[in-house]
């Protein structure tokens, strides 16, 4: 950045280890959060809030979950949407069946259910890795969606699994306007993102990274692979579960199991590829990119007067081409571009 850390001396371990060691970074972050919490709800239009910002935040949370598993622990998963579905339907059931269940507790319980399912389907990761694991996480995807369509109890006996989720109410205040929904989602996402950032800096995150870099070596130096990998699956699924619950409660309103199909899993995978595998910031950048891309392509398509089917196929092609492009040019994603830009600016205008 244009500023430097000159003059900011650390006099204790505590200040040396803080998340954002540079004062200007902290100020920028607080400014950003203040703008997001206060400025955006005041000035943004309802369309911008409910069609772009809310899904962006929810997808960013899901991408963060997947990034914990794939980016930090190195376990490729194609079952993200299934964990989201578990979280959504579990939260729905808790609110529907337990009288007086507080909404946030239901979200957390939904996340915990997703974590439990994630741990069960994470068991194969102890024996297999890479593509074999990716293929076996597909089992989660198909099995969970099948369960939700076929077992009526899980969907409160509604036909074909379509449920309308309850109104969001916390302490008697109901979140109905886009603005209030946005603030609620933002608060949850910001809190969980901070938690993730800290978890990754702690011994837990370091053990994940050790397993990612070489699991045999990690085992030799004393990380228990069973605990480490299953913990990664659990935490990742918890995040995805909460994201899934938010997706249902704050965005869709009425959900069917098919809303959480393989396509959604792939979209979230793309978010972390484009944003940056193994980066918290990358999850947000990738989610923003994938949410905005169809909107932009749509506007461009309309501007050029293309027919809809043509535009949607073109969108697929651009999507695929961009992924390949990113992998070739910058395998570490947008987060790395940001980092490189920051380094360059730090030295600017005297790069030597």
């Amino acid at each position, binding site marked *: 950045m244009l500023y430097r850390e000159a003059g900011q001396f650390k006099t204790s371990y505590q200040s040396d280890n803080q998340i954002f060691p540079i004062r200007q970074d902290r100020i920028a972050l607080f400014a950003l959060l203040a703008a997001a919490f206060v400025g955006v709800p005041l000035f943004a239009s309802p369309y911008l809030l409910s069609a772009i910002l809310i899904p962006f935040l929810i997808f960013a949370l899901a991408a963060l979950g997947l990034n914990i598993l794939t980016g930090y622990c190195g376990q490729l998963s194609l079952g993200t949407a299934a964990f989201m579905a578990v979280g959504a339907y579990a939260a729905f059931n808790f609110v529907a069946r337990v009288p007086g269940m507080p909404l946030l507790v239901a979200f957390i319980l939904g996340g915990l259910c997703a974590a439990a399912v994630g741990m069960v389907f994470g068991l194969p990761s102890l024996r297999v890795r890479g593509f074999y694991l990716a293929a076996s996480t597909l089992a989660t995807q198909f099995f969970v969606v099948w369960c939700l369509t076929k077992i009526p109890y899980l969907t409160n006996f509604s036909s074909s699994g379509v449920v309308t989720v309850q109104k969001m109410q916390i302490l008697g205040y109901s979140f109905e306007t886009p603005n209030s929904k946005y603030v609620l989602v933002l608060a949850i996402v910001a809190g969980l993102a901070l938690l993730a950032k800290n978890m990754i800096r702690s011994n837990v995150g370091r053990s994940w990274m050790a397993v990612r870099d070489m699991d045999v070596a990690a085992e030799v130096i004393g990380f228990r692979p069973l605990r480490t990998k299953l913990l990664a699956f659990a935490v990742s699924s918890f995040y995805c579960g909460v994201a899934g619950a938010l997706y249902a409660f704050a965005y869709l309103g009425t959900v069917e199991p098919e809303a959480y199909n393989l396509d959604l899993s792939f979209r979230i995978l793309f978010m972390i590829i484009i944003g940056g595998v193994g980066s918290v910031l990358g999850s947000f950048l990738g989610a923003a990119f994938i949410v905005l891309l169809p909107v932009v392509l749509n506007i461009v398509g309309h501007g050029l007067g293309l027919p809809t089917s043509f535009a949607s*196929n073109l969108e697929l*092609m651009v*999507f695929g081409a961009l992924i390949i492009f990113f992998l070739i040019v910058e395998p570490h994603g947008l987060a790395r571009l940001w980092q490189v830009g920051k380094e360059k600016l730090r030295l600017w205008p005297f790069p030597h």
Partner: protein
Amino acid sequence: MNFFFEVLIGGLLSGIMYALVAIGFVLIYKASGVFNFAQGAMVFFAALTCVGMVDKWGVPMWVAIPLTIVVMVALGLAIEKVVLRPLVNQPEITLFMATIGLAFFIEGLAQLLWGSQVHKLELPIEDVPLPYLMEHFNIIVSQFDVTAAAICAILVTALALLFSKTKVGRALRAVADDHQAALAVGIPLQRIWAIVWSVAGLVALVAGLLWGARNGVQFALTFIALKALPVLILGGFTSVPGAIMGGLIIGASEKLAEVYLGPLVGGGIEGWFPYVLALLFLLVRPEGLFGEKIIRRI
């Protein structure tokens, strides 16, 4: 009992169709270590191109097929040049993700060129029960399925001969064993990859025509690639015989499970049963039936 055999044989024959897709995966994985997620999209692209030529341009089938072969080879060469070459030496996972992007691109391209409606594909093979089995054993087995199996057998034999008897085949196996060593003895890596992708394109064409004649040429063809994944897990990623065995096991068990277990739990278990079967299998034998033993060193 007859019914059991009917289901079993039907399952085995559809398993061969899965194997056909799985072989495309195995070819590319063996030679370049790329797990080609775009194989399903290539199947779709090949079938749609062939049918599109017949429907839109009115060319006869026997002209359309060689033309499609040319297109598939061109596609293979283009993929090698544009996607793989810049990604040499990247980790396998990066290449895998690139092929997911490639799958999207090819799906979009296919529908952009030929439209997204369902096409009917007429092959000169009739979908009627074999009279011989019908008369003597009272088992209904479709003639079409048997022909498809025969085509698959011919294809596999041809591939096996290509791999074991020709110079190109030996080069392929050398590359599969060790890229660097193969390069060192003067095998042109890039040309080998181009050949492999072209051959995979051909296999995709055969699979696409057979599947297309069965279910109509439509977007759903891309999903059979997903069905090929449990086949690969069972058979091992690096073995052509494994892909066939895996296909047979998956095909038979899936149909039997659907018929005998399905009614107990409400049906539709075909969708996930192969994956769960493969998952359980993985817990016992992580490298698949015929896969190479995985040895990890620090």
